[in-house]
C-alpha cells in the first residue's frame, strides 16, 4: 500500500473548513438572535430601532450564508467521495502486473462502484475478426444479454451499439431499440480501440447510471486497457525471460 496522501485530502480539508465556517455562521446567527431579543425586551428609541433593523439584516444575511454553506458542504462531500472513487479505481487498476488481477479489478469496479449486475469485457483478437470475451460478469442463467451474443468465448458482433463503439471508440449509453447494452465503454491503448466494457444490467436497487458514473466510465476507457495490456506484456516478457534463463543454464550444463 502507498504511503502517499490520497488526493481526496484537499477535498476533506475543504469540507472541514466549510464545517468550521458553518459553525461560525451558526454562532453569529445565535448572537444576533440574542441581541435582538435583548433589544426587544429593553425597548428603546429610534437609535435602537435602527440597530434592530441592522441586526435583522445581518441575521438574514447570516441565515442565507448558513444555507449556502450547508449546500456547498453537501456538494463538497459528494465531490470528495466522487474523487475518492476515481482515485481508488485508478490506483487499483495500476497496482498490479498480474493480468488476472487487473481483470478482477475491472470486474470489482463494475460491480462495486458502478453497480453492474451483468457485464462483458471484450478484447479484440490479436489475429482475425471479433473479440475475445475476456470477462463475463453476471448471475443470469442466460449469460449476458439473453440473445446469445456473449454465450461463447468470442463476440463476433451483432449488438449495433457495441459494434459502433468498437469501430469508432465513442462511449455510448443505452439501452436503445436494437440493443440492451446500458453502456458500451471503449477501451483504448493510445488511440487504438482494443476492446470494450459492456454493461448489460444494473443491480435492482440501482435502476440507472448516475451522472458521476460517467467519470468512472471515462476512467475505465482510458486506464483499464492500458493497465491490462501492460500486465499482459509484462507476463509475456517474464515468461520469455524465464525460458531464456533456463536455456542459458542448460547450455552451461548447470
Amino acid at each position, binding site marked *: *500500500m502507498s504511503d502517499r496522501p*490520497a488526493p481526496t485530502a484537499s477535498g476533506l480539508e475543504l469540507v472541514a473548513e466549510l464545517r468550521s465556517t458553518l459553525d461560525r455562521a451558526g454562532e453569529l446567527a445565535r448572537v444576533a438572535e440574542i441581541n435582538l431579543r435583548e433589544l426587544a425586551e429593553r425597548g428603546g428609541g429610534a437609535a435602537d430601532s435602527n440597530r434592530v433593523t441592522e441586526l435583522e439584516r445581518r441575521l438574514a444575511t447570516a441565515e442565507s450564508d448558513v444555507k449556502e454553506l450547508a449546500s456547498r458542504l453537501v456538494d463538497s462531500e*459528494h465531490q*470528495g467521495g466522487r474523487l475518492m472513487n476515481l482515485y481508488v479505481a485508478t490506483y487499483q487498476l495500476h497496482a498490479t502486473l498480474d493480468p488476472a488481477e487487473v481483470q478482477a479489478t475491472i470486474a470489482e469496479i463494475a*460491480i462495486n462502484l458502478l453497480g453492474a449486475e451483468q457485464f462483458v469485457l471484450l478484447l479484440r483478437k490479436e489475429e482475425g475478426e471479433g473479440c475475445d470475451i475476456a470477462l463475463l460478469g453476471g448471475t443470469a442463467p442466460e449469460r449476458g444479454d439473453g440473445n446469445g451474443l456473449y454465450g461463447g468465448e468470442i463476440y463476433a458482433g451483432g449488438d449495433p451499439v457495441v459494434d459502433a463503439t468498437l469501430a469508432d471508440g465513442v462511449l455510448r449509453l443505452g439501452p436503445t431499440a436494437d440493443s440492451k447494452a446500458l453502456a458500451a465503454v471503449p477501451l483504448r491503448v493510445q488511440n487504438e480501440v482494443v476492446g470494450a466494457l459492456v454493461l448489460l444490467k444494473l*443491480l435492482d*436497487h*440501482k435502476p440507472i447510471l448516475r451522472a458521476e458514473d460517467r467519470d468512472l466510465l471515462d476512467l475505465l476507457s482510458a486506464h483499464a486497457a492500458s493497465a491490462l495490456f501492460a500486465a499482459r506484456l509484462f507476463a509475456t516478457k517474464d515468461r520469455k525471460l524465464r525460458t531464456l534463463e533456463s536455456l542459458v543454464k542448460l547450455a552451461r550444463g548447470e
Partner: protein
Amino acid sequence: MQPRKVLVVDDSKLMQKMYEVMLRQYPLVYASDGRQALDRLREHPDVDLVLLDVNMPNMNGLEFLAQLKAEGGFADGMAIVIISTEGREEDTARGLEAGAAAYISKPFHSEEILAVISRLPARSAA
C-alpha cells in the same frame, strides 16, 4: 461513534483500498472472508466496528454473524455494518435480523458510510 479500531471484511482489494482511504483517521484491520474475520477479532479485541461484506468465499457475511453470535462476540456491544451489493428489502431485513446495526447497499457514497458510523451508539464496554 468514534471507533477505536475498525475491522474491514471484504474480499475485494478495490474495496479494501476504498475503506483505507475513506477511514484513514481510524486504525484498520482487514479480513477477506468470515473465517479470517473471526481470527482478526480474537487478535484485536479492541475492534469496535466491523464493516462486513456479504458475498465472500469460505464463510460469507451472514454465516460470520451467526458464528459470532454463537461465540458470544456481540456481548461487548461491538457494532457491525453490512455493506453489500445485495440491496433488496429482504436482504436488509435478513442482515439486521442477524445482528447488524445498519445495512448499506453498494454502490454507496462515502458520506453515507461516515454518516452511519457517526450515528452508531458508542461502545458501552471500556
